[in-house]
C-alpha cells in the first residue's frame, strides 16, 4: 500500500497513493493507520485525491480508524472525486467525517 504521512503541529496528514480503497487494500490500510494511531495521533487529515473508487469496506476502514482514536479523535477528508463522495453520502458517513474540498479547509476543520 502506498501512503504518504506527514505530522505537523499535532496533525497527521495522510495521502493515499492508490486508485482504489477497497477490500483488497482494507487490511493493510487498517494495520498501517492503526499503528500511527497507536503511537498517539488523534487528529488526521486524509487526502483521497488519488482515489477513483471506494467500496463499503474502504468506508468501514475509515470508521475503524475513528473508533480506534476514541473520543479525542477527529478525521477530516479532502479531495473526494464524485464516485467517492457519493459513497460517503450513500452510507451517510458524510455526517461522521468532515468532507472538504481543499487541504487548507481540511486542516482548518480538523483543528476547530
Amino acid at each position: 500500500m502506498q501512503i504518504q504521512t506527514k505530522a505537523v503541529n499535532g496533525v497527521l496528514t495522510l495521502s493515499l497513493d492508490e486508485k482504489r480503497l477497497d477490500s483488497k487494500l482494507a487490511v493493510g490500510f487498517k494495520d498501517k493507520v492503526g499503528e500511527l494511531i497507536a503511537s498517539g495521533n488523534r487528529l488526521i487529515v486524509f487526502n483521497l485525491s488519488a482515489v477513483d473508487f471506494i467500496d463499503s469496506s474502504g468506508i468501514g476502514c475509515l470508521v475503524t480508524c475513528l473508533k480506534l482514536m476514541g473520543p479525542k479523535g477527529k478525521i477530516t477528508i479532502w479531495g473526494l472525486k464524485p464516485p467517492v463522495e457519493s459513497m460517503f453520502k450513500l452510507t451517510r458517513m458524510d455526517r461522521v467525517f468532515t468532507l472538504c474540498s481543499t487541504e487548507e479547509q481540511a486542516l482548518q476543520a480538523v483543528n476547530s
Partner: protein
Amino acid sequence: MNQVSLTIDSRPENVPLVGACAKEIAGQSFSIDKLSEIEQALVETVNNCIEHAYCGSEDRQITIKYALSKDRLFVEITDQGKGLDPQCLKKLTAELDYNPSDIDCLPEGGFGLNVINSCMDEVNYRREDGKNHWSLTKFVVPLT
C-alpha cells in the same frame, strides 16, 4: 442484445475487473455517474460473494453475465458458495439508521446490500441448483 460472460477466481484482486468490464460493455449507454453506480453495485455484490458465500476462499469461481439491450443493462452474478439467510435481504431496503455522534456505536460494515440497492433499479436474489444468483438491472432511461 450484447452478451458477455466473465468468470473469475474469488480473489479480491479480481474484483476491479468486474466493474471495468461493465464500463467497457455499457460505456456508450450510460452517463459517467450511472456507470459509477453500476460499478459500485457490482463490486459490493462480488465482495459479498467472496466474503460471505465463500468465506474468503480464493480458489472458488464467480461468474458475471452481462446483457446489454437497448433499454437496460442486466447483470447476473453467480457463486456456488453457501446460501444467504433470507432475513438479510431486508438490508437491501432498510434505512441506514445510526447516530453519527455516537462514535463507539458507528457501524464498520453492513452497508453493502443497501448500497447495491441504491445504485441499481432492480435487485433480486435466488438460490437455485446449489448456487446463489444475484440479478442486477439498470435501466438506460430509469423508471420514474
